């Protein structure tokens, strides 16, 4: 590692992965704060009673709000969400980590679970975009 720019640039070379750097943290600030508000039971109730109304109280982008409504977690990651914050959304839906995570992989829950039981996804071929190693 020679400087901070190299350090950060390497993170863009990992396939299918968004590293939660300052850039993402800033983009996702309101989104992640919204998600964290769901740690309180009364907020979870208000959210589920009318998601759109609840979301409109947060200064999030229209894309972020739509992606929450769609539970499109890959999109939410692209829009600055962090998985530990977003976990409050799927927890409030009563979903497990396995279930929610599987929705990002293009597999069904069953296929994803079968892959995990079989030892998980191999790192071979998904270490680097550039090297395909």
């Amino acid at each position, binding site marked *: *590692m020679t400087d901070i720019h190299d*350090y*950060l640039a*390497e*993170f863009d070379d*990992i*396939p*299918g*992965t*968004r*590293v*939660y*750097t*300052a850039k993402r*943290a800033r983009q996702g*600030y309101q989104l*992640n*704060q919204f*998600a*964290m508000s*769901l*740690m*309180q*039971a009364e907020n*979870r109730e208000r959210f589920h009673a009318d998601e759109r109304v609840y979301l409109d109280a947060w200064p999030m982008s229209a894309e972020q709000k739509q992606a929450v409504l769609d539970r499109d*977690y*890959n999109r939410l*990651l692209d829009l600055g969400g*962090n*998985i*530990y*914050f977003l*976990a*409050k959304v799927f*927890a*409030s839906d009563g979903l*497990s*980590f*396995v279930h929610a*995570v*599987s929705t*990002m*992989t*293009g597999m069904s829950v069953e296929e*994803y679970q079968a*892959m*995990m*039981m079989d*030892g*998980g*996804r*191999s*790192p071979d071929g*998904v*270490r*680097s975009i550039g090297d395909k190693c």
Partner: protein
Amino acid sequence: MARITHGIASSHIPVLGFAADHGKTQDPIFKPAFDGYRWTREWIANEGKPDVVVLVYNDHASAFDMNVIPTFAIGCAESFRVCDEGYGPRPVPSVVGHPDLAWHIAQSLILDDFDMTIFNKMDVDHGLTVPLTMMFGEDCKEWPTTVVPLAVNVVTYPPPSGNRCWLLGEAIARAVNSYEEDLNVHVWGTGGMSHQLQGPRAGLINREWDNMFLDKLVGDTQDLRHIPHIEYLRETGSEGIEMVMWLIMRGALGRETRCLHRHYHVPVSNTALGHIVLEPVDGTVPQSPTFEADGAVTTSIDQ
């Protein structure tokens, strides 16, 4: 004098807390994970019992939101509440702190040039409570140890380097060694091993790399401290970075360790589970770079 008698590393996978809280530890899907802690539970209930655990973990957007991101936080409170992570709080006892030792460690670390943030009020999440359950069992009315919570940022980049974590562990050892009361202290490193919880690459598991990491926690090699963040990410998934916290535990054990117990299992939820119990063979840590010590703070914790 207080001394670090053992180090333990363990994954802190939330679903294990769920299984423990709902009587599912013997379900076929969870049984192999829990079976690997049987040795530790037996040992820690007897000769392995700590008076205090310095419990290194990370907060998962539970106590800390995006408004405050401490690199190293130390909990000096009398007790710590268990937080509601969205499913309701885990039905486990509150965590009892050890403010005397915690403040002593905090002060020592700052004098040793670690830029700690002290918390006197802090809730704790599965990162801290799941390891307590795994070691002490499902039926604790109260935890049989006091705890000094040490929370490390591994969520927002950059986390501290592996080397910084190892150095912190060494400084924790010096701090414990300079505490006058006779106490058996454990240092636990939690989180890991391979896991990626996000995106099309989710579910990544690297059994070979994880076992290399477990191998190198034992003995006198210091190779692990020099692994860059990018290697954790490429090899073990985006959440594998949590393993830097194990290096705080390893650093605290000094020059050489031996392994008492080791357990590795895939999968638990999205994750590879790793667990190891270590004791120092030669617990010597380097002298403080800031104290002009004549051995006062640098004591061998050799047994």
